[in-house]
């Protein structure tokens, strides 16, 4: 009970800190943090699929692109306010993801990874094909949204709060989904789909649904990015984006909700640091970072943080002279 209280207090403190940032950081830093939150939403989507459900995807950049383009085209063609485009992008990606999840049911592990990879390869080219809508390789230039209702916020501050709000809502929904009955079914399918089916779980339905929800999260992230960057083009969504998202999800901690945020920080800031360290070979430095992280924190950053947390709480309990608390539920599912 106390640990739960402590966690809630901790979450509130982090949220309060996040709300204060716009008033201390420069607009540029805020823009970077906004990007972190966008990545975090996309990575949580990927995490549901890969971490919780055990389906590999090397193609989530494609859903990110679809979300961004749905939003951009709605704004550019029909002058829909950006706020409305975000849920629409999510719903369209949900449908696209669900439909892609159906044939993907037949593929396991590496084969699924390759099938999704083809999606990541294909989407930027397909976007060029529908030039009338997508603007072809030149993309679509958008306007950066201003704060509504005359709020005294700069566009960067406003987008930061908007993204933070979407993040909080989606993480709350995601946590409820993953920690409840549905979440247990999703994890059971990952751990052993035969026994899961024996327990009466409709494996095919759940797998396609997870694919859909995962794509929806990533699509919402894409839609947000369209407003924040104020530009979409096929070059924004190359194969590397999909790989980057997967890196974020593994480094942050697979099957971890908080891991999505850690992973997002990693993919946003570490490439920049690598560039600061060496202009000549930034990706070699990035590779070293990756290996070190994987070696030191085999369960991702969230796993390492969870472990430290357990050690701290346990020692406190011991000091109080009581029995050690029962083992914390495995950090890989928190």
């Amino acid at each position, binding site marked *: 009970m106390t640990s739960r209280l402590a966690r809630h207090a901790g979450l509130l403190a982090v949220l309060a800190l996040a709300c204060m940032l716009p008033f*201390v950081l420069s607009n540029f830093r805020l823009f970077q943090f906004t990007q972190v939150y966008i990545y975090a939403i996309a990575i949580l989507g990927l995490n549901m699929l890969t971490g919780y459900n055990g389906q590999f995807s090397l193609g989530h950049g494609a859903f990110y692109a679809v979300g961004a383009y749905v939003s951009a085209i709605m704004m550019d063609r029909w002058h829909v306010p950006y706020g409305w485009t975000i849920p629409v992008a999510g719903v369209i990606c949900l449908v696209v993801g669900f439909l892609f999840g159906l044939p993907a049911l037949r593929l396991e592990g590496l084969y699924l990874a390759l099938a999704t990879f083809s999606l990541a390869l294909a989407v930027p080219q397909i976007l060029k094909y529908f*030039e009338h809508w997508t603007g072809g*390789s030149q*993309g679509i230039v958008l306007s*950066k949204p201003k704060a509504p209702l005359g709020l005294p916020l700069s566009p960067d501050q406003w987008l930061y709060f908007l993204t933070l709000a979407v993040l909080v809502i989606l993480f709350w929904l995601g946590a409820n989904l993953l920690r409840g009955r549905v979440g247990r079914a999703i994890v059971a399918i990952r751990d052993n789909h035969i026994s899961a089916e024996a327990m009466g779980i409709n494996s095919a339905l759940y797998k396609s649904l997870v694919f859909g929800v995962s794509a929806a999260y990533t699509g919402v992230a894409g839609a947000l990015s369209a407003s924040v960057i104020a*530009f979409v083009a096929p070059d*924004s969504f190359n194969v590397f984006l999909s790989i980057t998202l997967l890196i974020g999800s593994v480094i942050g901690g697979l099957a971890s909700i908080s891991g999505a945020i850690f992973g997002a920080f990693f993919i946003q800031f570490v490439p920049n640091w690598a560039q600061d360290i060496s202009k000549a070979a930034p990706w070699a430095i990035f590779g070293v970072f990756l290996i070190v992280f994987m070696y030191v924190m085999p369960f991702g950053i969230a796993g390492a943080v969870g472990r430290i947390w357990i050690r701290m709480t346990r020692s406190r309990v011991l000091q109080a002279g009581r029995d050690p608390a029962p083992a914390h539920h495995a950090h890989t599912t928190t």
Partner: protein
Amino acid sequence: MTRTRKLLIAVLAVGLAGLIPALAAQTVVGVTATEIKIGNTNPYSGPASAYGTIGKVIGAYFKKVNDEGGINGRKINYITYDDGYSPPKTVEMVRKLVEQDQVAFVFQTLGTPTNSAIHKYVNQEKVPHLFVATGATKWNDPKNFPWTMGFQPNYQTEGRVYAAHVLKNHPDAKVGILYQNDDYGKDYLKGFEDGLGEAAKKMIVLKQSHEVTDPTIDSQIVNLKNSGATVFFNITIPKFAVQAIKKSHDIGWKPVHYLNNVSSSLATVLKPAGLEASRGLITALYMKEVTDPQWKNDKGFQDWVAFMKKYYPEGALDDQANGYGYNVAILVAHTLRQCGNDLSRENIIRQAANLKNVELPLLLPGIKVNTSPTDHAPIEQEQLARFDGERWVTFGELFDAFRKQ
């Protein structure tokens, strides 16, 4: 209570301290008595990383400038970041340059989509966005984007050059056109049709387009042949240019073949298409080809080689991009010298828009840089060249896209 109040005051003070320089420095940002900060993004990684050498050769040239005492006593502090040719990364890096590094201006950001992503931003922030490395025509729009300026001849300019040549030498020709169905292809097409003017309706007998995703353009070439066209304007990227040259040779169609400069590379287009099939192609050039032996004794070329050996020895001497970067770095140094001691952003763009007959060592003889407040396209002259089976041989006089021939 007092502690929180103290904290609050401290936070406010820090915030104000951040504001004051921003307000005071509205005009002269990124310049001190000893330094000028210049920002740049280049694709050092990713799909377009072959162009990354441009960012490096520019850095090497600025090192030379600094070694020789800088510009008006100020050293150039050149900050260049990798954007991997990814527009969101370009936005991030350019914002970093402008807001955090506080550069005086950004320069030679590379790529059409990447520059599109920052186009509005730099103009809103009123940061000079000079000599961008892309051939699109939209950078020359001083009315709507007064802080942005192109560099190389843009696609429309080049289209006009071919049109002028056609009008002069083949006034009775039937013209067939193949173009890629996107901004790049339409840019060229517009320049060409504008250049033909009234005659366009009469002369152009067939326009065929293709998608960049098409596997082949063979049927378009056959259609063009059957249209009876005697002049062929070929607006395609290297992959399709190879197909077009090969196919028209194979089916025995021998029009006067104008090939856009985008696909003028010997290594990636003409050799794969076949040197014999390529004989007689016409393209437009504005730079001295660094691999062309005719420049061996040219002063500009020799200076470039000496510079490369001393300041950028790892750079390839047969890479045209290294010549390109050298030219544009010299142009920005020239612009800064012309600014004198007033290095405010307003004056930097004013001087960049007031370049008169500037010569650069690796431009073809006679081609000069000219800009004005209503003309943000620095290079608008080109020279035609014909492929003789071994190399491009320039011929005729210079074409100025906007002067009556």
